[in-house]
């Protein structure tokens, strides 16, 4: 239980088309992440799945049941919001139990589920507190707990980590990954952070301008991006794009090379360039080159390397790890 099908879902706000025909198939138990720049329609899509927003056209089925006319509470979903959205006047326990209470679940069943969820999230000692008395991380755990107790077919996460600081973000990310393993539930997660997408997802859906650019596992997207947008969006630092003509390649318009697939040498190599900036991250060293032949180039080296601004170096892309794109920006395979 917990599959989702979207068929040519469109959404327009007046003359503006936010979603231009989305087709997607989510299998039971999958962790699917919608990722894309802000304004790409990913949150709108999530809200349409939740029933908070009506699709202009298209069909949405959850477990083979058409849900377009079903109100959010009856769709068998639970949602975790970026701003936590806890009820300020209720304590943690009642926050988690409200949905079940509204659905008429017996009291002892509510008790049991709240107890289970709170032990899963180590929230037991906070059950009597109000949201105002909790820290940001605890609030987000309560919001996740509120979703768990409903035992939904679909978990929807709307940028749940954006309001947390960096350390908490990593912890909560691990927590969500653990929950997904334990609950084996279908989860749909929206984020603009590609690190979250890469680390959590079974399947990533890359959206841009209301259109799905590519669907695939994290490594598929990394290794075989379908077009320039996906190639540039996935991976950090972003892929280098070089005009194919400048490299003497004739059967493509653009050549893409990931920064980590370039070797640097002081003696010899394909492209000569001058170091314009170096970032030392400990595990990595990021070198920015300015090359007369091909323009700016980002190179990611593993470990510590001592290059200084102004050094003249040679960069060599590893031959079997370049990506070719045609004039329309589509990958050539």
């Amino acid at each position, binding site marked *: 239980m917990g599959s989702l099908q979207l068929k040519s879902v469109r959404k327009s706000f007046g003359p503006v088309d936010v979603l231009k025909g989305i087709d997607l198939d989510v299998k039971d138990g999958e962790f699917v992440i919608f990722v894309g720049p802000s304004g790409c329609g990913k949150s709108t899509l999530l*809200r349409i799945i*939740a*029933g*908070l927003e009506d699709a202009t056209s298209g069909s949405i089925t959850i477990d083979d049941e058409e849900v377009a006319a079903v*109100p*959010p*509470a*009856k769709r068998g*979903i*639970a*949602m975790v*919001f*970026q*701003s*936590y*959205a*806890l*009820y*300020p*006047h209720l304590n943690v326990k009642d926050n988690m139990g*409200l*949905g079940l209470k*509204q*659905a008429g679940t017996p009291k002892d069943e509510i008790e049991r589920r709240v107890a289970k969820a709170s032990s899963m999230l180590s929230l037991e000692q906070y059950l009597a507190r*109000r*949201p*105002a*008395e*909790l820290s*940001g991380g605890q*609030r987000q755990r309560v919001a996740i707990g*509120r979703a768990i107790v409903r035992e939904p077919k679909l978990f929807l996460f*709307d940028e749940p980590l954006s*309001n947390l600081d960096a350390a908490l973000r990593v912890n909560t990310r691990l927590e969500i990954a653990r929950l997904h393993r334990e609950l084996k539930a279908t989860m749909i997660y929206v984020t603009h952070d590609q690190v979250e997408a890469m680390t959590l997802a079974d399947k990533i859906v890359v959206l841009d301008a209301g259109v799905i650019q590519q669907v695939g596992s994290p490594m598929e997207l990394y290794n075989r991006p379908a077009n320039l947008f996906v190639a540039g969006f996935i991976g950090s630092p972003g892929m280098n794009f070089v005009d194919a003509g400048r490299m003497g390649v004739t059967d493509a318009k653009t050549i893409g090379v990931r920064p980590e697939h370039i070797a640097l040498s002081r003696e010899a190599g394909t492209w000569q360039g001058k170091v314009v900036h170096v970032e030392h991250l400990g595990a990595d060293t990021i070198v920015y080159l300015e090359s007369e032949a091909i323009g700016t180039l980002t190179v990611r080296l593993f470990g510590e390397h001592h290059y200084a601004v102004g050094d003249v170096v040679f960069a060599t892309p590893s031959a079997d790890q370049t990506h070719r794109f045609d004039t329309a920006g589509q990958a050539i395979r």
Partner: protein
Amino acid sequence: MSKARASLSRTTLVHLALIGYTLIAVFPVFLTLINSMKSRNAIFRNPMQLPTAETFDLVGYTTVLGQGDFASYFQNSFIVTVVAIALVLLFGAMAAFALSEYRFRGNTLMGLYLALGIMIPIRLGTVAILQGMVATGLVNTLTALILVYTAQGIPLAVFILSEFMRTVSDDLKNAGRIDGLSEYAIFFRLVLPLVRPAMATVAVFTMIPIWNDLWFPLILAPSEATKTVTLGSQLFIGQFVTNWNAVLAALSLAILPVLVLYLVFSRQLIRGITSGAVK
């Protein structure tokens, strides 16, 4: 260091201005209070003087409480004010919620239409209102006053509350929808508690003009049974002779209930249970 000093002189100036304003605002009330406790001669001879042993005289209060049915006037004023505030808050908040929460055709126009009432004084429609009240047989009832005051208060209430309701987190309302709360439950249980400070503001702004109004009680409900305090006090103002002791005493007494109502609402203004709902 210099920043701290600058802000000190700044706060001093701000406080001076506020104290000055307070003095100006409170002075008429103060004058009313001290003169209500003086003999008639003393009121005219030394209006600024505090009541002394010689001039102290409660004749105003005895007149007010003895003559006319002031308890009933107070009751009338109180009923009219409280019911009108309740209706203004209820309907104003509901309209504001609809305007701020739902997208529908003509939303902005509807908002403007409702806000027009702030700019056009309701008294311009007195004749029509009176005709309507006569036709419906509501003249000389408190209902007439309540209806008029509700209409008078709603535009400002909608205006202020819809602005505040826009600030209530959408996520919170959506969380309620997913948890199966009805739109009414979302309105009453999630949104209203969060805009309580704004509700208190609206209540105070609505209350004062209603309590002080002379116009509509005089026109719509001048009968003995429906007189309000403000109208009742006019009993002592004659064309030729005015019983100032009684007028001042009546006005002093009239401050009390409205002060109580104000204290009730202002407590709401500073309540802070709403923090921590959303980041």
